[in-house]
């Protein structure tokens, strides 16, 4: 029997064992088996092989798996008001609905605020007109755009031409500020509006209850200004990186107060780090769920990070924020890795940034050329544009500097590899250094080494153990040799594809602060 015949015979025998041959094919094979000892031997070997695999014991899933999954589902359901087909409904729709209620609520709040100010501040004779104005606004509450304009005129005169021009902008850039600034006031309304009824969540489990909804603060004086300012901000064109650096003081103050973020589009980068910084508690898991859903909707190719990268408790802890509580100057922990287009990254970032109490910073590294070490100015320029503003530019510069140097410590390696902004004093060993070997992405390292972007000879400290098979094979990390690339497999030395898609690492961290009440 020649090799080709034997190959065909083996394939037929394999299918025969699965009962996947037609009657005719099976009959032919059985005749052959009756005549050929060699065929019977092959059958016996395949039969035993298959029986060994089929004999593998089934493992019981962990006891807490069901509870872990359903508790996440519970939160997802609570976050995702549903009606028919709702799980697939985009968060954009949800935000759209919220915006409508936010507009209504803004009017209500404004009316109360105006009335309050009128009563307490302007004395006699103003009470009646204020009430009439409030009633008029309430009657027009469904015309939210017009109402917003009235609010601007009434409480914080704005550049109407700017507002009008901005009205055609993509909806995503607008509204976030509005939602966030007035969200406290509208939370009670948005919680159970008629068309966003909270779904009946009756999970057959002992899933822990979701965190209690934050109490809704009563309107206070000054709320009118805040609402109007928010409306004004919401109508502003999407801030570019440059514009963000030259915001007016008021806008910057507002941004600081309400977390207004418009994440710039990362361009010309091979690797992108999306650092999600959330306040402890609800914002953390809200951000992660938002991202999880957005990823599913975008249909990106998800590359989950190893469970070991997520800490002892894995994702289960994430939704309570406990597992990702780190200091502000430390990097977050890897949550996702995936490949996506820059446009998708921007959409995803803005989705996550739309969650109240969550800040998103996007940085790209890798550039459109793999030898950016030879052209640091270009790299810095790229990174500076991505980061936006002076602080981001500073981060970018630091990143470039570190990229040029030898990764003396694995923490540096990790920071560079993941595109993390590192502080100027990052040479001071931190607790994160100990965990770094586990998180350092060998893939990134290899690409860097393969591209020859590290120079040798500038290491000053002893390296920490690095979780990299090749590197530990008699090599000194501090003296990372450029020739390391020769030792890597061809597949490993291929830099990631440029331009079409970037590799995104999502890092998440909780700053351990309760949300402002």
């Amino acid at each position, binding site marked *: 029997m020649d090799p080709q015949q034997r190959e065909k015979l083996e*394939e037929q025998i*394999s*299918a025969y064992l*699965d009962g*996947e041959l037609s009657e005719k094919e099976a009959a032919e094979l059985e005749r052959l088996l009756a005549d050929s000892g060699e065929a019977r031997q092959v059958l016996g*070997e*395949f039969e*035993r*092989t*298959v029986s*060994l*695999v*089929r004999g*593998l*014991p*089934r*493992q019981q*899933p*962990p006891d807490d*798996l*069901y509870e*872990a*999954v359903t508790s996440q*589902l*519970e939160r*997802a*359901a609570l976050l995702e008001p549903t*009606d*028919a*087909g*709702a*799980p*697939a*409904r985009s968060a954009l729709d949800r935000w759209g609905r919220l915006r409508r209620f936010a507009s209504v609520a803004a009017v209500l709040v404004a009316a109360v605020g105006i009335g309050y100010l009128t009563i307490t501040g302007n004395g006699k004779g103003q009470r009646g007109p204020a009430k009439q104005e409030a009633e008029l606004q309430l009657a027009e509450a469904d015309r939210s755009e017009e109402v917003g304009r009235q609010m601007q005129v009434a409480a914080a005169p704005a550049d109407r031409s700017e507002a009008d021009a901005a009205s055609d902008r993509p909806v995503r850039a607008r509204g976030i500020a509005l939602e966030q600034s007035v969200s406290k006031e509208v939370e009670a309304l948005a919680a159970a509006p008629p068309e966003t009824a909270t*779904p*009946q*969540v*009756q999970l*057959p489990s002992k899933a822990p209850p979701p965190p209690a909804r934050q109490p809704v603060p009563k309107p206070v004086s000054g709320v009118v200004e805040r609402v109007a300012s928010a409306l004004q901000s919401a109508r502003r064109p999407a801030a570019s990186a440059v514009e963000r650096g030259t915001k007016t003081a008021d806008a910057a103050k507002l941004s600081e107060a309400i977390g207004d973020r418009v994440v710039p589009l990362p361009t010309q980068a091979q690797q992108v780090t999306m650092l999600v910084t959330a306040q402890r508690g609800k914002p953390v898991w809200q951000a992660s769920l938002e991202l*999880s*859903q957005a990823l599913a*909707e975008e249909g990106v190719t*998800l*590359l*989950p990070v*190893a*469970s*070991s*990268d*997520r800490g002892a408790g*894995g*994702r*289960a802890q994430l939704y309570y924020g406990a597992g990702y509580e780190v200091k502000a100057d430390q990097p977050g922990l890897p949550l996702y890795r995936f490949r996506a287009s820059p446009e998708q990254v921007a959409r995803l970032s803005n989705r996550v940034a739309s969650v109240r109490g969550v800040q998103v910073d996007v940085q790209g590294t890798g550039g459109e050329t793999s030898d950016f070490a030879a052209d640091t100015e270009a790299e810095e320029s790229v990174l500076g544009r991505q980061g936006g503003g002076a602080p981001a530019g500073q981060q970018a510069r630091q990143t470039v500097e570190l990229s040029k140097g030898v990764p003396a410590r694995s923490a540096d390696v990790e920071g560079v590899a993941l595109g993390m902004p590192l502080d100027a004093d990052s040479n001071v060993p931190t607790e994160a250094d100990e965990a770094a070997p*586990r998180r350092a992405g*060998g*893939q990134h390292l*290899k690409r860097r080494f393969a591209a020859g972007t590290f120079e040798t000879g500038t290491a000053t400290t002893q390296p920490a153990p690095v*979780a990299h098979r090749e590197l*530990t094979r008699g090599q000194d990390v501090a003296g990372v040799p450029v020739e390391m690339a020769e030792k890597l497999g061809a597949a*490993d030395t291929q830099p990631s594809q440029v331009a079409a898609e970037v590799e995104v690492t999502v890092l998440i961290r909780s700053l351990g602060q309760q949300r402002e009440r």
Partner: protein
Amino acid sequence: MSEPEASPAVTAVSFDDLSLVRQAQAGDAGAFAQLVAKYQGRVYNVCLRISGHPEDARDLTQEAFLRAYASIGGFRHRSSFYTWLFRIATNVAISHQRQVRRTVTLPFDPGEEAQLGRQARGLTQKAGNPSSGPSERLSRREADQLVAAALLELDEQHRAVVVLRDVEGLDYQQIADVLEVATGTVKSRLHRARKMLRERLSPLLEIE
């Protein structure tokens, strides 16, 4: 009174799945939770045999269900729910394995892999030693370890097809639906995978 004879399992499963999926699509997270309860064991075992690590399998199972829930509104019943669910789980697990393979991490204990390697070699030698007495022969558990290790040596595509067929018992058409390949591809991949397994497990086959 005698119990009425149960209807064929497949029919019952399909009906239940259909109604549960529709409820879940209507926003009933509880219905989806029932689907989780029903399929968590199978999904977990698929993830376990593809990833090879219980911890990873746990995370991957969660990931698969969350992705399924997020996408269930778009499920159009063109295939059965569990085929669709297995597709998500398999994709998540395969993607994870590819990532793990690329990153080449030795995260936990530098000596762990070396130790595992020694164990596997020892077991293989033990299995292949014709002079071994009954007490020295491989226990069932040891044999399972070897089989699981051999499975992990296959690339993800071949591993997945073996897991779906020989661990989960899916037929070729179902596997083709899960992996979104032709049945002919399933057939040839299974053949190649079993051939590789046969070579790796030859010491075990000889003492069977």
